[in-house]
């Protein structure tokens, strides 16, 4: 009889917890893999494809599936370091011997040379180039990610990648520089 009560008690407990777990599995279901999201937010979203994947998200998925974390030149060392922290692996130098601190650039179209072929517009991954057929094109600098993808398709080579200008807001004190002043 005692055995019966024990079984009954344990059985009902098992049922209750089973129901709770079952409910939780439905109610708090995780959509997709959250690690991909986390990796994606670390990547610089230039969508340049230099990693060999067609955009930042595909690369994030690849990293989640075990790809190397050092294939993102626009992100530089900082991105590799963050990815290493997140993935729990050793930080490696950038693949392909890229410089550690990438220079931020934006595309600039020399407008008098532009023939209006729209090829760069089609190449831009973030729709940062405006223009129409046989009309001059121009780059929305604020939206340009500096991915270089528009440079190659241009048939007249009128696109330059210029470094982003330093403004007062982005200027930094050079702490290790020797101050040179001249009084005139």
């Amino acid at each position, binding site marked *: 009889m005692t055995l019966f009560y024990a079984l009954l008690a344990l059985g009902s407990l098992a049922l209750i917890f089973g129901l709770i777990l079952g409910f939780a599995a439905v109610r708090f279901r995780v959509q997709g893999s959250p690690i991909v999201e986390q990796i*994606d937010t670390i990547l610089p*979203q*230039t969508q340049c494809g230099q990693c060999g994947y067609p955009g*930042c998200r595909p690369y994030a998925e690849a990293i989640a599936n075990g790809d190397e974390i050092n294939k993102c030149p626009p992100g530089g060392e900082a991105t590799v370091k963050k990815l290493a922290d997140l993935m729990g692996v050793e930080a490696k130098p950038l693949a392909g011997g890229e410089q550690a601190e990438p220079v931020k650039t934006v595309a600039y179209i020399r407008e008098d040379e532009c023939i209006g072929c729209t090829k760069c517009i089609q190449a831009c991954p*973030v729709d940062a180039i405006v223009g129409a057929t046989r009309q001059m094109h121009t780059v929305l600098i604020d939206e340009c990610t500096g991915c270089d993808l528009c440079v190659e398709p241009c048939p007249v080579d009128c696109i330059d990648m210029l470094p982003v200008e330093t403004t*007062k807001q982005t*200027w*930094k004190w050079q*702490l290790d520089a020797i101050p040179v*002043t001249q009084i005139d």
Partner: protein
Amino acid sequence: MEKLIQQIKQGKVWPFPGGIHPPGQKAQSNTQAIKRLPLPEKLVVPLKQHIGANGQLIVDKGQSVLKGQALTKPVANWSVPVHAPTSGVIADICQMPSAHPSALPELSIIITPDGHDTWCELSPVTEPTTLSHEQLIDIIHNSGIAGMGGAGFPTYIKADSRKPIEFFIVNAVECEPYITADDVLMREHAEQIVKGIELMQQLLSPTLTIIGIEDNKPQAIAAMKQASQHNDKIIVQTVPTVYPSGGEKQLIQLLTDKEVPSGGIPADIGVLVQNVGTLFAIEQAVYQGKPLIERVVTVTGNTIHNAGNVWALLGTEIKHLLDCQGFSPVPQQRVVMGGPMMGFTLPTVRIGVVKTTNCILAPDHSELAEPGPEQACIRCSACADACPASLLPQQLQWFAKSKEYDKLKEYNLFDCIECGACAYVCPSEIPLVQYYRVAKVEIKEQQAEQVKAERAKERFELRKERLEREQEARQNRHKRKPAAAKSADEKQKVADALARVKKSDDKADNKSAVAAAIARAKAKKQTGELEPDNTAVAQERAARKEQARAYKAQKAESNENTNDTPADDKKAAVAAAIARAKAKKATKTESTETTDAPVDDKKAAVAAAIARAKAKKAAQNESNENTDAPADDKKAAVAAAIARAKAKKAAKENESQPTDEVTTESEPSQESEPAAHNAEDKKKAAVAAAIARAKAKKAAKENDSQPTDEVTTESELSQESEPVSRNAEDKKKAAVAAAIARAKAKKRQQEGSDQS
């Protein structure tokens, strides 16, 4: 609250933590009255001298400007205009080094003074109490006033505070060593400053206004007390001399025992702070109508012979100020803009005075030594004791050096006011503030990048979506054509058309039918000419309308026929055309002359009815079919489509200008001629016929707009039927006949219009 005000009125102050007592060095410059300087050779006025956006340029190079004339106008939010500091000519508008430690170039207006110093027209207000809130804000905004204490915050935004202001605090502390600009301003212009305070009271209606002055400025305190005697809502509070009691947050804590929350602004706790210089500028803007074009600048330091305060026009080069006060530079001379604690060394003295420049310090090496090499932190914690914001400068320094930005945020780096007290007390001469500044910029940059990355991601995804959508649309377009042809509806149409062709074949062979039609048409012409009957015309018109619609539908069908059965499309096209012609003819006959009706009267009527029903249905589909139809390899279909489009256009033209019929008539005929000449086979002849039909349709519409023009219609009819009948025999003949028909039609039309 009552108790707090009571305590404030009793003169109680609440000291803030930390603070330092550097030597004042104020006696050098505060003994003399404010001097006016001779006009400089040129003035460099940067477009942006405040926090916020540039104004929009409203002057051009070479233009003459008067003193006080606006050079820019505010456009975006937080933009404040700048004004010409004196009358003269704009020599250039170009990038010049800015008053910033980086000296990064900034768009500036260079004015060559003409020496007359002629004011533009000013509109002073003598009784500001009559002004509305908005008017007063506009005056402050348009006068280009921005905070003159150092930060350059647009004053109009502060003055237009939406939050209720309990305490209005006037910052007259001037805690930084050497600087005496506010001190002497209060001594000389206390009354104007109090007027400015009263204007702010009018705007903000605070419970209490507190003027905070350090106890090392007894003359200023006396002057302000004297000037504010009449207003019991203003109290002058003497505060102990501690650096940095002039910091906004520190002063609020000192005077009201309230602390501004981290990341918040004083207005969050019902407090608003303004510098005395700003209040003086407000008074000048309202009572004098003068925009902000000059300010008091302390020029001091051991290398200045005649240290003192001067009225400097905005844009005056620092070099001019130094020269006027007698400057004998030492080797490796440094010139600092601002005070020794928070100021920065200028890279060049060819930089103009801006709205926030309160002091030019040219020290020799003994009074402000070049900082020695940085040494290791000995963890003495002197910096933590000195910090007025109760931060841990030592911790922050470690994190800044190792670029641990998350930790920096955790330790409230952004509450640092960069007062430099920590660096001042540091025995290891660590430039702590510089580390913090770099870290702050880095963090802000990272945040901006994060935002940008988010946006890039969003745009990338939107683009991907769009491309997918376009791809899908393209595929659908390819699919739709065969699918539509196969649809039951279309099949039915085809079957109907075939049935009609058969029916007509049963009755009589094509030739005889056509011949009969010609005969009928001729007969009708004669009768029509003899006795014009209005009712008959009306009926006829209605019938024609129907017929036109049916015809349109049929043509669409015939195109599809051609596509579906490429083997015998030629035959089908011809047959369909004939069928249509007959159907049309039949309807005509039926509606106009029942007596004249031929043997197949009844059947034709039925056919016409079917055609009409279908036409209605087709007409509904027609528009999208037209546009959706892809480029067809069959020339005939293309030609037919062109003919249709032209006919439509012509018809529209005719509707809009009915008197212009002759010219419009000639246009399509030109088109049809080459088509006929180029015809190589019967298919092309069919095209010519189609064009002719299109014209007929147009003519029918034309007649709608010209009801009396009966004769023309008749001629059109004959013209239309002729090519159809003859194309079976000979293309050349058909073309000639069509041309003749056209000529005839033209003549008839003219006749008709003459008659009418």
